[in-house]
């Protein structure tokens, strides 16, 4: 039997890797992928503990999270597209005209 805390550590690791992706990547698309990764970390947790607690709430909710991740990426792509049309490339650092 895999003790449940390992799942916690695993999902935390994936969560942090996704976060690291967001902090360092300049390309907006990488942003999307990393965000996707972070959401999946949550999914792992949910499914693991659905089994732990013996009720299906976690798993069904996981489905919903996955669906929403997809929706998010859809909108994300839309935004990246518009970004490209306006700034010529998808580098996140160029889009810094407004500050202070």
């Amino acid at each position, binding site marked *: 039997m895999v003790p*449940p805390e390992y799942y916690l550590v695993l999902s935390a690791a994936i969560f942090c890797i996704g*976060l690291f992706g967001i902090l360092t990547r300049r*390309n907006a698309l990488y942003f999307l992928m990393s965000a996707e990764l972070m959401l999946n970390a949550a999914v792992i947790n949910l499914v693991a503990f659905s089994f732990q607690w013996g009720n299906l709430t976690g798993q069904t909710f996981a489905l919903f999270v996955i669906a929403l991740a997809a929706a998010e990426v859809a909108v994300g792509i839309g935004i990246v597209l518009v970004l490209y049309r306006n700034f010529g490339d998808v580098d996140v650092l160029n889009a810094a005209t407004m500050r202070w």
Partner: protein
Amino acid sequence: MTDTDGSDRASAALAVTALFAVLATMALGAAEAFPDPTGFPADVSIVHNIGYALFDIGLGEIPVEGFLAAFLIIALALDVALDAAIYLAKREDEGSIVSALTDGGREVVAGDVAEREPTDEGGDR
């Protein structure tokens, strides 16, 4: 597409590892607090139960909370996301939309993408 320069990567790495450390200690701290997993009865089809849960039909053996409300909402949500994505992606064919207003960042000359002069450093206090 290169990544952010060296110094940012270091601070980002530091921040992320710190967060991971916190989460890991949290997880390991709760190591023996978990009772042994109750698991699911072997003879039951989990997929059916998920189906019942989705439509909040009480026939399933495995305890689960009703997701009907969430199901209806996500329907609307996905539709909205679709609209948003399409709107953003849509390219108005006969020339770009005349900029409604000088809104957003700075004055934009209608039509082409004017080069924006970055706001000066100080801004009068």
